[in-house]
């Protein structure tokens, strides 16, 4: 009956109740939405690269190495000689190595020279391997494999010929237009920078820079081992290592950092990724602060609306008191109305967020590489909703107290 009274009381003031409900729903929508995006951004960020034990590049800052080798942001400070790569890749502890050569672009998308090892060993997310949307890994010198975003943005598919340019701008003057590449495969979306990358063979880059004449097309057959039997480049930009045993990670890292031939450094991608994310925690906190403030505004608005309603309820208070209701009962009645508004707001906000995620999920994934899954009620979100409920009770304390005092002082 108590619940019925509170609900009926709210329904009797439909206008203000609905407006308050909307405000709270929007605030919950923002709160949960931001939490969802924040969490997913962190997750998809942390899973940009997985299964790679070490990333090796010329001596520089670890973040810089991570940024250019994984995120294709910024420029490498220096290259690594092919010899150094071979020395490390052939050492006993190493299971596999993926060389990376940067420096070219196509329509603003970075081109990465690598080997087939990339498609065999690189993984992201929870150890997910790269998958092909169409076509297959490159075989010929001038084959290219496109990230999903490159293919969809430029409208390329298997068989399209593309001209690479030196440097990064799409208007670069140095175009290697004597040697077109042919799209051999398109990768499925990953939500990582791989989507925005064009992958070609190392020797393709070498051949292109050499003028396209030194290596005849078709010189490499699928039977060829990926890392051997081609005109070796003089240098590469960086490489990723998979070790036979994770236990040896730190000793291999130390060996590489003390490599005699040239100044190299090895980083653990997981550690570097979390360091990078730390730098963005400020941004995270600002997002959280904003959603908290939106919520505070909504809850205070509700408090104000309820407070204003108490004045119109003097006769009701008197009647309830005469029926035997204690002032505390009336206090609880107002708090209950606030809780009902809050819970309905949570429900409405949550459901609309769910619907919104359902509607835009794919678009967000392909556009921002954010994978928004629909599990809204994470432990953190539940904690937040609990905090919202507490804030509601606190904000409703003012009108409830007003109700209490009017109930105490019947004249």
């Amino acid at each position: 009956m108590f619940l019925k009274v509170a609900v009926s009381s709210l329904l009797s003031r439909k206008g203000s109740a609905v407006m308050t409900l909307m405000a709270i729903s929007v605030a919950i929508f923002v709160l949960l939405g931001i939490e969802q995006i924040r969490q997913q951004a962190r997750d998809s960020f942390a899973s940009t690269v997985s299964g790679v034990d070490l990333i090796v590049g010329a001596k520089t800052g670890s973040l810089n190495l991570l940024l250019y080798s994984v995120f294709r942001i910024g420029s490498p400070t220096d290259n690594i000689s092919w010899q150094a790569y071979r020395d490390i890749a052939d050492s006993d502890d190493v299971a596999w190595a993926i060389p990376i050569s940067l420096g070219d672009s196509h329509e603003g998308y970075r081109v990465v020279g690598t080997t087939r090892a990339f498609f065999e060993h690189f993984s992201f997310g929870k150890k997910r391997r790269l998958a092909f949307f169409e076509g297959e890994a490159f075989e010929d010198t001038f084959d290219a494999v496109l990230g999903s975003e490159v293919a969809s943005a430029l409208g390329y598919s298997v068989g399209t010929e593309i001209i690479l340019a030196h440097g990064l701008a799409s208007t670069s003057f140095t175009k290697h237009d004597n040697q077109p590449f042919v799209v051999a495969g398109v990768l499925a979306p990953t939500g990582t920078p791989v989507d925005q990358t064009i992958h070609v063979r190392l020797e393709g880059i070498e051949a292109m820079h050499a003028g396209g004449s030194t290596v005849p097309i078709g010189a490499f057959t699928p039977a060829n081992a990926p890392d051997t039997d081609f005109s070796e480049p003089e240098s590469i930009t960086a490489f990723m290592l998979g070790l036979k045993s994770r236990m040896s990670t730190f000793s291999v890292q130390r060996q590489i950092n003390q490599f005699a031939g040239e100044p190299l450094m090895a980083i653990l991608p997981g550690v570097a990724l979390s360091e990078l994310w730390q730098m963005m925690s400020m941004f995270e906190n600002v997002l959280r602060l904003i959603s908290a403030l939106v919520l505070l505004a909504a809850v205070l608005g509700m408090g104000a609306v309820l407070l204003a309603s108490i004045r119109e309820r003097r006769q009701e208070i008197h009647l309830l008191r005469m029926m035997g209701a204690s002032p505390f009962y009336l206090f609880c009645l107002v708090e209950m109305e606030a809780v009902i508004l809050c819970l309905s707001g949570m429900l409405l906000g949550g459901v609309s967020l769910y619907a919104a995620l359902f509607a835009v999920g794919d678009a967000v994934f392909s556009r921002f590489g954010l994978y928004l899954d629909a599990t809204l009620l994470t432990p953190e979100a539940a904690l937040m909703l609990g905090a919202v409920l507490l804030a509601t009770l606190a904000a409703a304390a003012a009108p409830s107290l007003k109700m209490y005092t009017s109930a105490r002082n019947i004249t």
Partner: protein
Amino acid sequence: MAVQLTGVQFSYEKDSQRQLLDIEQWSVERGERILIHGPSGAGKTTLLNIMSGLLACTRGNISVLDQRLDQMSAKQRDQFRANNIGCVFQRFNLIPYLNAMDNIGLASTFSAGGNAQWRDEASALLSALMIEESDWVKPTSNLSMGQQQRVAIARALINSPLLLIADEPTSSLDSENRDNFLSLLMELIGSRDMTLIFVSHDMALAEHFTRLEALSDITQRPC
């Protein structure tokens, strides 16, 4: 004894020398039907609020149904009122956003231990008060004033109180509705052996009561 007031004083301002009510000795026997009349502003409603325990008197002894209200805490007085006293006012007798049935149900939740059979009893009361069944679940704001006042009787009687306090309940009714209201009220009270304290300025109602009191006779106001 239904009500006994001894040396009761009351004023809204603390430490005031001027008492709104100052009653040396006044009592009501069980089963009496008393009409209290007096000019407006004389303190009739205040007297009712003191007898119902809604207001605590500044000084003096109040017994209602042989229980000392002045020795109870506010919470105990609320509970006592819910269990033992029914109230009907001039207007605003029903929660406007609840229907007649729910108003009665709400009143029943305040009595100690609740009342599992309240629906049956409410139906019986509403039928006895000649409220049509289709009006039981209508919003009370859709009921006429006469209907509302009769539903109020049902609401006041649901917890089987021994004392009914009525504050000008007929003042907003036309004469036909007033007579209807009074006869139904007296019938129900008679069958339940209740005490009635009824405040009105309308002396024409006197024939329905066993005793007539002027407020000025009850309280000695300093002139």
